[in-house]
C-alpha cells in the first residue's frame, strides 16, 4: 500500500474517532449538566421571583406540544388514571420528557380518564 494512501486512511480513521469522541463527549456533558440540574433547580430567590414572572405551561398545553408530534392524539378516556400513570412513565423515558412536564401531562390526562 502506498505511503500516501496509508497516511490518508490513518488520518480518516482518526477523524472518525475524533468525531465519535465529540458526540460521546457532548452527550456526557449533557449528562453531567443533568446530574447537577437537580441542585440548580432549587426554588428561585424572592428577588428573582419579583423580577421574572414565569408563565407555567398547563398540562393540556404540554400535551399538545409534546404528544401529537410523534403519534395521533390519544384521548384521556382511553385508560384509567392508574393505567395513564404507567403509560406516562413509559412515554417519559421514550420521549425524553422532563419529569415535571410529564407530571403535568399526567394530571391533565387523569382528570378526564376513563373508568
Amino acid at each position, binding site marked *: 500500500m502506498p505511503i500516501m494512501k496509508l497516511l490518508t*486512511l490513518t488520518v*480518516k*480513521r482518526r477523524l*472518525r*474517532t475524533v*468525531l*465519535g469522541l465529540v*458526540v*460521546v463527549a*457532548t*452527550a*456526557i456533558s*449533557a*449528562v453531567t*449538566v*443533568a*446530574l447537577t*440540574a*437537580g441542585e440548580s*433547580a432549587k426554588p428561585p430567590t424572592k428577588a428573582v421571583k419579583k423580577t421574572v414572572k*414565569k*408563565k*407555567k*405551561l398547563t398540562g393540556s*398545553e*404540554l400535551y*399538545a*406540544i*409534546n404528544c*401529537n*408530534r*410523534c*403519534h*395521533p*392524539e*390519544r*384521548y384521556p378516556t382511553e*385508560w384509567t388514571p*392508574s*393505567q395513564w*400513570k*404507567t*403509560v406516562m*412513565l*413509559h412515554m*417519559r*423515558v*421514550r420521549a*425524553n*420528557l*422532563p*419529569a*415535571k*412536564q410529564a407530571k403535568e401531562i399526567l394530571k391533565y390526562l387523569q382528570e378526564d380518564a376513563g373508568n
Partner: protein
Amino acid sequence: MKKRSLFFGAVAASCAVGVSLPAPVRAAVSDDDFNSLKQMVQQLGDKVQKLEQVHQQDQQSHQQDQQKIQQLQQQLDQTQQVATNAVQKAEAASQAPPAQAVPSGPAARHNFQLVGDAETEFGRIQGQKSAFAMADFAPIFLYRANDDILFEAGFDFTLSNGSGPTANTSSGTAYNFDLSFATVDYALNDYMTAVAGNMLLPLGTYTERSAGWLNKFPDNPLPRGLLPSNGIGAQLRGAIPVGNNGQMLTYAVYGANGPSSMDGTGNSSQLDLGGNVGILNNSLYGGMTTFDNLGNLHSNPSGGGRIGWFYPLKAHYDLELGVSGQTGEWNDLGNNWSALVFDASLHLSPYLEVKGEYINTWVDTTDLGTIRPNGWWTQAGYKLSGLNLDLPMINNVELVGRYDRTDDVLFGAKAQRYTAGFVYYFTNTLLLEGDYEWLHNTGSNAAQIPNNEMLFQLSYGF
C-alpha cells in the same frame, strides 16, 4: 250527616208549619197542594234511603281503610325492629376485634399495562402477483413497579410469505419472533433515567418512533438498513428544560455490544449489524463444540449517544434537531464500525409535518479497506382537514410523500426511491396506509432488489 240533618230539618219545618197554621188555613189546603206535598215527602224519603246506602258504603270503605292502616302499622313495627337489630349488630361488630388485620397505606402502586400495535399488509411488486404479504402483532408489556421504576418489553410476531421449495414457486409462510426491546428503566431524578437491557438505540429518532401506526408508510426508509436498531447494554437518557415554552435539550449516552462479525473475520460481507448478546455458544475447542464461552466476537463494546434540541414555538409548531453516533470494534482484528446520524423534524401546523435523517457509516474491513455505506431520507405529510373542506371522507385523509436513497457499499447496490401515498384515519389509532414506490437501482447487485411496488397496510395502535 249533612243530608240527614237536612231531611229532619225539612220534616220538622213541615210539622211546624202544619201545627202553626190556623184552622181556616188548613181547611183552605186543596187536594192538589196536598198531593204535591205528599209527592215531595216521598221524594225526600227516597233521597234519605239513597243517602243511607251511600253512608253504609262509606262506613264499609272506612272500615277497610282502618284495616289497611293497622296492617301498615304492623309492617312499620316489623321494619323498625329489623333496623334496630341491624344497628345493634353493627355496634357489636364494631366493638369486636377484626378477624384479619386490614392493610393500611396508599393504594396499589404496581400496575401492568399492555400497549402496542398490529398490522396486516397487502402488496403487489412489479412483475409479480399481488398478495397479502404480512401480518404483524407487536405487543409492548409495561410493568410499573413504582413511580420511578418501569419494566418494558416489546415483542414482534410476524407471519409473512415464505420461499417455496423450488426456484419457480413461492409458497408457505415464514414465522418470525423478535424481542424488539426489553429494558428496566429507573428514573434517577427529574432529568435523567437509567436504562438497561435490550435497548432501542437512539441513532436518529426513527427506531423509537417507527411502530406501524406511527411511521405513515408501510416500510422503512432504505438507509435505516445501515444501522442497528437495538443493542444490549446500558444507557443514561433524559432532558433538560430550557425556558418556559416547552423547549428542551435531550440527551442519551450508552454502551452496547454493537455490531459484530458473523464468522470472526473482518471481511465486509460478514458484518452483522444485529450484533450478538455477548455469549458465544459455537466455539470449537479440540474439535468439540462448547457452549461455555462467555467471550464476545469483539473484545470491546461500542459507545454512542445522541444530543437533541426541541424548540416549540407553540402547540403544533415546532422544530427538533439531533445528532447521534456510535463507534466501536466489530471484530477482533481491530476493525471499527462507526455511524453518524443527523435528524430533523418540523411541524408547521396540526396538519403539516416534514422530517428526515442523514446517515453515514464507516466500516473498516479486511478485504475492502474502509467503506462508507450512507444514505438519507426525507418525508412529508399533509392532513387534508387543514383545507376546511366540508367533506368527512376527505378530512380523514393525510397525503404523504417520501424520498430516500442509500449507497449500500457492503452489498454493491445503490438505490433511490420515490414514494407517494396516503393515510386514511378510521379512528385516531386505526388507519390505512397506501403508497406506490418507484425504486431505481444501480450497482453490481441491483437486480436483487425488487423494483416498483404498491403497498397497503392496515395498522392499529393500542
